[in-house]
């Protein structure tokens, strides 16, 4: 073997090792996401069960508080819900069809009406239980590409027009929804991608961290009326673009932001 060929082979081997190490690092990070997701779906389920009990007891205030608690857990796992559990996502988070899911319950519940929401609440508990079961199954594993897709898609959705009241207009928790969404994106990014990206492009890795902080700054401790909607829109889109830019450096496909 000639010297140039030996050098080329050596470089290829090194790249292969690095690439495998990256892939292993991402796979390990993806595995680390599971406890985060299980914990937050657990919060969503516990909140839904508390709501179920409160509705049966005729306690509207307690049911509303439980809805908000459940919703926080759900919003934090939104980077994974649509991407890995699309069918359950559709029924749990259906909108605007007022037959099932969080929003069907929300509209009546926050008007203080408990009479007709028993069925949808039971349905939500059942669907979240099923979600928890599928997520917690030992055979279920997150894969990095799906996580990057989910985080990027959610970053895009953060920028959607909220002028008419956002995602939870009747509960009035849309800014909190966005805050939890961003927490979910941050968890996924930091657990799975940050270290690998930092090794390859430290500047981009830092820009993503900074942009996640920017988004947080727009919504933390605020209600929707006081959120700079245009600034939030821009920050959400910029975060999505940065995550897309990171994809090839992570040896992943450019994430699609569709459903």
């Amino acid at each position, binding site marked *: 073997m000639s010297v140039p060929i030996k050098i080329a082979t050596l470089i290829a081997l090194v790249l292969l090792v690095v690439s495998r190490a990256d892939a292993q690092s991402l796979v390990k990070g993806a595995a680390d996401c599971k406890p985060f997701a299980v914990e937050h779906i657990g919060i969503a389920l516990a909140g839904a069960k508390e709501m179920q009990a409160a509705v049966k007891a005729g306690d509207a205030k307690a049911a509303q508080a439980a809805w908000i608690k459940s919703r926080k857990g759900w919003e934090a796992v939104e980077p994974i819900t649509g991407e890995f559990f699309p069918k359950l996502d559709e029924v749990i988070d259906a909108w*605007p069809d*007022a037959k099932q899911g969080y929003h069907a319950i929300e509209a*009546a519940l926050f*008007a203080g009406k408990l009479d007709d929401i028993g069925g949808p609440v039971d349905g939500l508990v059942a669907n979240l239980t099923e979600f928890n079961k599928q997520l917690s199954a030992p055979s279920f594993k997150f894969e990095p590409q799906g996580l990057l897709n989910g985080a990027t898609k959610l970053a895009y959705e953060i920028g*959607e027009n909220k002028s008419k009241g956002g995602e939870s207009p009747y509960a009035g928790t849309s800014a909190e929804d966005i805050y939890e969404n961003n927490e979910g994106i941050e968890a996924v990014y930091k657990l799975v991608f940050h270290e690998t990206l930092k090794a390859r492009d430290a500047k981009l890795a830092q820009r993503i961290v900074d942009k996640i902080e920017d988004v947080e700054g727009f919504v933390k401790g605020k209600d929707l009326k006081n959120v*700079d909607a245009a600034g939030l829109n*821009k920050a959400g889109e910029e975060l999505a673009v940065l995550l897309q830019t990171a994809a090839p450096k992570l040896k992943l496909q450019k994430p*699609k932001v569709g*459903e």
Partner: protein
Amino acid sequence: MAALSPRLSVVLAVALLALAAMQADARPIVTKEGVLPLGSELNEESLDQPNELFYSELAGGKRSYLLNLGDMLFSSPGILGGVARQAGMSCGTCHQQGHNNPKLFIPGLSHRPGTFDTSGALFNPKADNGVFDAVRVPSLRGAKYLAPYTHDGKFPTLREFTRNAIVNEFAGPEPSPQVLDALEAYLKEIAFLPNPKLGAGGRLTKNASEAARRGEALFNRPFPHDAAMSCAGCHRPDAAFVDHQLHDIGSGGLVKTPTLINANFNAPYFHDGRFDSYGEVVDYFDKQFALGLKDNERADLVAYLDAVGDAQEPTIRNSVEAELDEIAQFISVLDTAIPERNKDVIALTVDTVGGQWRELGESFPAAKDTSVQGGLAERRRARDMVRAIVLSLREIAMAAAGNDFESAAQVYAGYRQQLAQASAGVKAAEAWSLFNPEVREAHFAALNQLAKLAK
């Protein structure tokens, strides 16, 4: 039955008006969490849009860069400030396609749909005069012929009128000269709609009815108690039916003579929008100026006003094609702004056009919208493509903000390539979009059902 207190009467009237505004395609604000008051209606969902024509195109020419820039800025929340910007409102919210917005209703600022108090506290506390003096939102068709501007004729030029609207009415930042140049160019281009019943010198043509012709004679006839006065004395047919003057006609101070061209589509009438119909307007003048009109003469005058105020194709049905066409005109601003390294215009264009793409994308109901059946694959594809294109636009703005105009140009070239595919994708999904009245009805019925549950 006890009489209602004035305050309660106002509250009830506002509630009834808001209810009346809740038509199948209306979507009033339903949450206290929104930046606009509960019950606000911006009438953004209507399928029928006012027709907008430009003088340059009617003359066989083309849209200039300045016109496209002005048109884009007119649709941009980014040039306004405070609550308006926050609510995603633009000049075009009140003046849809350069016309008016007869359904616009903001509790506390509107006393009826189509009116708005420009000196209320909500949009600019500094301009709050403490008086609820809502005025009719005027059409801007033919604006270049209609100086002075605003109902009290406060501004001699469109430029001053525009600056006042941005800075004082809607708390925006001081507009740059290029922004004002472009908006002025746009406003001067908005044409009256063609009306075959109206000929040279503002005379009726043979297309008008006999009653309208009799009304024309009455319109020009001197008033019985003052021969120097006539309807045509102020509404001069040979001068776009205006005299550029203020008059006290007993309606509350001096008001500018409004044009009558295309006025069939400008209701409500009078500066404060107090009248719904020409019949009421004619009755008012009959009494106010002791005209002594007989019933048939009143009818003839109404027929005349109806002929003068008519237009060919006053509205057009909104469609994917129409939205894409507008987006194409707006985005063409980047053809000049990127080579000129004009960061401000690039940022405003990306924000505005990106917002329009997002709205177009939301016309294709998501899988989670189970009120809509069929075409799920097409809807998904359309939404995916729109989202991809929005992010390409954002990438252009990010590159320009970082002074990397070469990358901005490259991404823009990529956007152009994406556009063909995205256009085909959204057109293919139109049958299952909110542009289809049946889909629209199902979607809004679901939204209204949610609103009903929440009452």
